[in-house]
């Protein structure tokens, strides 16, 4: 991790993954690329941790996995949000917003 990237707070990875899957089922690599692109490289997740999180989220029943074919016709594991996962992502986003707003209020001069 270089200077221009930030370490991630615990739980953030989960949120990022769930948010990435909100736009539709996809495989782990796409999730990783989506995070990199959306944050313009500021936030990076170590891939091994990303996958651990994916499997953990599957275990919690927020996402489910299935093998499918990728665009280049390779076998890839696709993840999709479950109903519980969709609820979870909405809840976490609003939580994050409130959290971030509170933090901003503190650090920005009035």
């Amino acid at each position: 991790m270089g200077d221009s990237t930030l370490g991630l707070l615990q739980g953030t990875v989960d949120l990022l993954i769930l948010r990435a899957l909100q736009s539709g089922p996809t495989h782990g690599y796409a999730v990783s690329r989506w995070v990199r692109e959306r944050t313009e490289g500021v936030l990076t997740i170590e891939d091994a941790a990303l996958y651990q999180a994916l499997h953990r989220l599957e275990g919690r029943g927020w996402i489910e996995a299935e093998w499918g074919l990728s665009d280049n016709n390779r076998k890839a594991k696709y993840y999709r949000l479950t109903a519980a996962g969709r609820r979870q992502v909405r809840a976490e986003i609003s939580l994050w917003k409130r959290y971030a707003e509170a933090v901003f209020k503190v650090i920005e001069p009035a």
Partner: protein
Amino acid sequence: MTRPIRPHGSKRIFRFLRRSKKDVQSDVREEFAFHVDMRAEDLRREGLSESAARDQALREFGNVARGIDACVREDIGIERRRSLSRFATELRQDVRFGLRLIGRNRRFASVAIATLAIVIGGNAAIFSVINALALKPLPVNQPDRLARVYSGESQMSWLNYQDLRARSTSFEDMAAHASAMRGLTRGDTTVRAMGEVVTTNYLTMLGVAPRLGRPFTPADTRTDVVVLSDRVWRTRYGSDSRIVGRWITFDNARYEVLGVMPAGFRGIRPPGLVPEFWVPVDSSPANGVLRDRKKTAFEVVGRLKERRDFAGAQAEMAVLAKQLKADYALDDQFTVMAVFAVDGLGGYRGVSNVMLPMFLFVGLMTIVSGLVLVVGCANIGGLLLARGAARRREIAVRLALGAGRGRLIRQLLAESFVLAVIGGSAGIMVAWWLGDMLNLLATRLPFPIEFDLTIDRWMVVYTFGLALVTCLLCGLTPARRATRLELVSALKDDDPGAVRQRFRQVLVAGQVTLSCLLLLWSGLFVRSLLNVQRIDPGFDPTGVVVANIVVDDDRQAIAVAPELLARIRAVPGVQSAALSTVVPLSLTGREEHRVHPDNVATDTRGPWVVANRVTPGWFETLRIPLIAGRDFQTSDGPGAPLVAIVNETAARMFWNGQAVGRRLDDFEVIGTVRDSKYWTLGETVRPTVYTAFMQRPFSEMNLNVRTTDLAGTTAALRSEMRRVAPDVFVEIKPLTAAVAVAIVPAQVGAMLTATFGALAAMLATMGVYGLVSLTVAQRTREIGIRKAIGARTIDVVRLVVRGSMTLVTIGLAAGTVLGALGARALGGFIVGVSPIDPLTISATAMLVVGTVLIASALPALRAARVDPVRTLKSE
């Protein structure tokens, strides 16, 4: 970027089966590899070289091995949870499905459940008896540490018990107990109560808390106290909670009630006989019996010390017994010295000769009820088979859509499972009811028999286990058959196939075989019962009154007897009167000895005889003819040479029929009488030795009076007894009533086998009816065509009946052969009937053929009556 794998919102039709660890690992590896490949490709597109791209992709990925481990661990957890919840869901589905199936098919369900309830209930009831006899632990504190100190057929004298107790180091404590009979007076009526005289430490040593009051303890010195059994308390005192402290009358003496023992408490007696009271031994110097080392009256029990075992105690007791034998010249005592567990089957040691027929009978009933279970199973199996056949198409469709065969089988078995649970519960209730009936039946016996048939853990396990095994066995074959089919032909609804039909035919033939066998056996039992009632007991019980008199000791017996007899003989209507210690066939008392004919000392101990002690005129009173020699006379009294009379069997066995003048131990044989039955009507007469009551008195005696006026004599007897011995309890009844109990075993046997036989026959009839109905239903078209081309109703019926008759013939033949072979084992239970009794066999055959004829003619008639045009059009 993504490709939907299945339509949004659709449910998965096919699921992955549970994956192995290896599968999970390779999946994770593949997923990672895909990621690294994709990233490397992207990087190459950004201009990196092949190998640099790959290196960077891997670097970005981080620790691959740890990632794999973590993901695999997570996935295995997921798999486990998923398959568990899938199983639970499916089970729930299956059970719900089973319930729905059963709810939809009320008729099938009620027939199946009723069948199960009856057959399972019958088996469970028999098991509850086995449970009570052999499995339930003795209801005392730590029964496995209790030891019986058994000194051979004779019991132990008080002094010997005292010495053993003082010298033994193996036992924490030892106690003695002896059977006792007392007249329990309440108001005007006096009834016989059987209980125990025990040492004051007996109840405390067993460590059972009474349900009311307290037991007597070693600290108690009073002898006018009594502890009652739960049964007496319930039946005689109406469960009066204020009984403690009240005084009751026992043999005209007053006793204070100290406590009531809990239900089921029976001291250390084997199951069945429950003492009705416990009183302390009167060990005062006045009690002469206790001072005589030769008067053996007690049984001894001890509680082992910790870290002592039975073998060690036995060795110690053997040494002590040898010392006592030598010190006091006790030649005829301590012939055996054994120490064994009171609990479990050990409790039967020493009484096994009495209990053996009971065990054999229970074993036989287990077999019989098991056979009925099999017959019932065949019915349920047949029904399920028919259901499976009817649902063939549905099953084929589901199989074709990809349903797993295992899942389908499980679903079909779920129905059996639901049946098993319902049937098992119903069975327990039936068993409970049957147990009550059995205990009710036991109240007809002249002693307090009560089995602890309460439902315990073992009962529940057994009943539900049996129900489950039964239903799964019944359901498995039909389920496997239903799911193993040719899809195409099943979907096209071709002929269901002759194979399944043949399987049901085998089932029905088997049912007929077994029910035939059971009917045959019950026929033998019924015939035997009829025979028993006709059996000549060898004496004439009509016109005889028996009074059971228990006095304090032998001396009082001698004192009372002559006057009593003289007074009774003077009563108008009385023809003769005599005393005996045993009333034959009344199941109340027996005496057995080993004897030495001609006093020949042999290495082996002498042969067994049964014995009775009688006064002059007893043979005349019971009309047992004297064949040779003479009857006892008044001169054969105390001090005169000891004399004995033997029966024909003994004379024949020991002396070739010439018994008079021969010696038998200390006795001279002075006469021979005709054989008569002693214990049961069915027995082969045993060698019997009669001795003179006045020479060998006993405190329990029976007054036998032949009279022309039963009622008048009974009343006179009562008043005379009150005059001669006012504080003695007397129980008076006609001898015919006393010996009536002798046929109770035969009645019970006939009743049980007949019930089971009838049950089996009914189930088999249902089986035949079911099979024929199904066959007829499947052949409706054929029957229609036959009728259309001119067949008459009778032709159709004949066609159908002929088919079932083949089965019945096979079943009948097999059943008769098996039944006759098996009946050899019944030898001990059936009297006067050959196991291959032609009458029984032909009656059974006619019964079976008749019922089957009706069972198959009814559906055939129904089919034949249907209008052929309608049948043909409907197809």
